[in-house]
């Protein structure tokens, strides 16, 4: 066979995902792959964070929640004490 194909450039397209179990944040109800209401851009600017209980939230959402609690903050989903997953 005489023909060879030489790839000079392959410009591909991909989308990214946080790969969380749920589609939306339990606090702000916005998509995880979107961003929290306070942010303009998704992704690096508005990261997700997982709790020890394995529930995920937008970082900004859970921080707001934690800061608004007077007593020990609980996970809004499972009501267990909130701890960031190590």
């Amino acid at each position, binding site marked *: *066979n*005489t*023909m*060879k*194909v*030489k*790839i*000079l*450039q*392959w*410009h*591909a*397209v*991909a*989308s*990214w*995902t*946080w*790969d969380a179990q749920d589609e939306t944040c339990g606090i702000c109800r916005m*998509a995880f*792959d*979107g961003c929290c209401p306070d942010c*303009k*851009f*998704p*992704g*690096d600017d508005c990261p*997700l964070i997982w709790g020890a209980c394995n529930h995920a939230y937008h970082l900004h959402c859970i921080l707001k929640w934690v800061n608004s609690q007077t007593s020990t903050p609980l996970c809004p989903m499972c009501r267990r004490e909130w701890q960031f997953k190590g």
Partner: protein
Amino acid sequence: MEQDDADGSLDSWARFCSLSNELLGGDGDLSVGPRLAPVVADLCTRGLATLVRDYFLHSLEETFRNNAVKKFWQHFHPYCNASPVDRIKFCVKEHWPEEILSGALEDICLEKSYQEKCVLVLVHALQSYEDRTPKRKFKAVDCSSSLMPRYQLMVSSVLLTTLPLSFPEILNVYFKKKLEELNIIMAGSYESDQLGNHELFESSNTSDWHSGMDIDGQDVSESSCLVKNIGKVVRDLRCLGFTSMTEDAYSSAIIWLLKSKVYELAGDDYRVPVLGSVKKWIQAVPLQFLHALLTYLGDSVDYDSGSSGLKSPLASRPSSFPGIGVPSEALVRWHMRLEYFAYETLQDLRIGKLFEIIVDYPESSPAIEDLKLCLEYTGQHSKLVDSFISSLRYRLLTAGASTNDILHQYVSTIKALRTIDPTGVFLEAVGEPIRDYLRGRKDTIKCIVTMLTDGSGGNASGTGNAGDNLLEELNRDAENQENADYDNHANIDEKQAWLNSESWEPDPVEADPLKGSRNRRKVDILGLMVSIIGSKDQLVNEYRVMLAEKLLNKSDFEIDSDIRTLELLKIHFGESSMQKCEIMLNDLIDSKRTNSNIKTSLLKTSQTVAGQEEAEISHDVLDATIISSNFWPPIQTEDLVVPASVDQLLSDYAKRFHQIKTPRKLLWKKNLGTVKLELEFEGRSMQFTVAPVHAAIIMRFQEKSSWTSKTLATEIGIPMDSLNRRISFWTSKGVLTESAGPDADDHTFTVVDSMSDVNKNSIANERLAEYQMTEEEGESSVASVEEQLKKEMTVYEKFIIGMLINFGSMSLDRIHNTLKMFCIAEPSYDKSLQQLQSFLSGLVVDEKLETRDGLYLLKR
């Protein structure tokens, strides 16, 4: 006594008759006068004064008719008896009708003036009788004072009753030719004035033109001589009672000359102003002529310098005309009449060519400026609207015109008419049919968005700023406007101004122009564009789809011009409306950074792994655009099995992404993107830029030189019809050949042996040919707004069909309102009229519906 009396009367009467015959028939011999007086006195004493007068007038009439009138008309018989064609031959003769006319007039006036003398002889005779017998004065006075007016009346009635039909025509030709002559004489001095001798002309206050002294002694004396001759003809004609006929003739000749002058000056050149020259010419030629003529005839009486109490009814009477001085009221009237006629003529001429003028805009703005002034004077704006709308329907709003052409003409129309009509009232009327027409076209939104945002002249893959897009231009205009308007408000926070404009929505179509609009000047054109589309959301939506398509087909990350466009769109439509587009562009910026990080780290690793089996392709060739898919329009995904070597690169890349961005992961959209590849045949090669699916197809032909479509489709993981569509790219380029396969719907494709075969089948004969997929060969990566809408509207299709079964046919409005009324359950109907219209026209294309007289009905 009675008998005596009667004999004496008869005697006197006979003497009177013979003496008057002698007087009238004589060759200018007035010596009869003294002999006539006693006879007349005798007859008057006998109470026959009236009879004397009537007999005398009757004899004058006979003589005049026989000696003068017949001869007079005979001069014109050859013309009057000629056919229309032959008449033209007369007209082109150099001295026709001048020679004949002045000769004939001279003769008849000579005869008339002799007769007038005769009349005076009788008047004297009557008067001397009266003087002697004051008691009986009454009757005779009546006769003597009425004699001359009766004579004049007789002359004109004899002439008018024998007038040939074409005599007014002859007069008209005469004045036309004379004026033309005068125009040519004046052209010299008028043009030298144009060349820069303004002051001389303006300041030369030589009110006595007929005296033969002006700017250019020779020209003027020549012209004054000409006017004198014309004046003589006019005076003779008046003397014969042709006063109003003569005035009509020279008026219409002046008007005719003015008209041809306007046509000559205006022509088809729209890039120079002509109104000024026309007005100058009016003063230089017809007004000078009229001034000289009226002065010659002694009609030019200046009321202002005369009696103090008489006020001119003309409001803006010029204090002085160049070369004339303070004009008479008659001349001022003429001036106004001629200017009005010039304005109207130029206006009609420009309105008739408005379509071309607008095509030529802004180069044609001098013509627009002229038209504006004309319309301000005549107030005939509605003429413009009617005429322009009909030329639009005839020339622009036709199936043959591209949507782009229509839009560009519309924008030019807006710009041009904005000058003429700052309130936008006429623009509204003119724009209506264009907007209606455009709403019925499927590619309107797309073309509008392209025109607004694409500076590369419609070429989506164009590089750099080949030209401004409309948005850029509007923005620059607005900035200029603002700088001009608010120079002394330099502290106005521009950001605040932009913020205010964010909440802007186009004025409703039926907006009251008197109410004015916020930011009208800044957003006028854009607002009208948006009103075609329906809403700014639809415009933004279409832009987002086009932007997505463009970004996903890029092979680099250069988006400077798109960022600029986005900034402009944010200014006009608000930041929040553009949020998603901003994220899309931000994805490209992020991708560029991430891509370079990942590649650097991948290349480092592959270098450090020594002794690895040599990779077929390097990590270096892979680039990736990584998108935040939630913010992009729906993406067309299709499964695709890429060659193993590429797949390896993709998974290495994804793994590295995950390492850098934990816990984020990459999901490849393998059918999207662009691939640059080189096909190598013994020593020769060709470059192509294609979609991944085309690359996947051609790469399979390295392992095996022949494939059947069925097996290849399975290998690549795409449906058969899809494969057939894509593989035709390679056959069309001559790289693959197609032959009958194992069964009817399964074809065999074989790669050609060498470049020479490729050359035979394709246009490429360069050593290294390069191919870029054309737009038709490529396929869209993003679902179009139309496809999205179709998907959303399908729910309502059965409602619409149901309605039409019940009602037969329905208008767009009625369908829209019915859907709004009844489709309130999920999904409730929330589409705009334009969206519905576009969906319905899709159903018409699919032959489910048809339209008749603007109503929709089921296709049978």
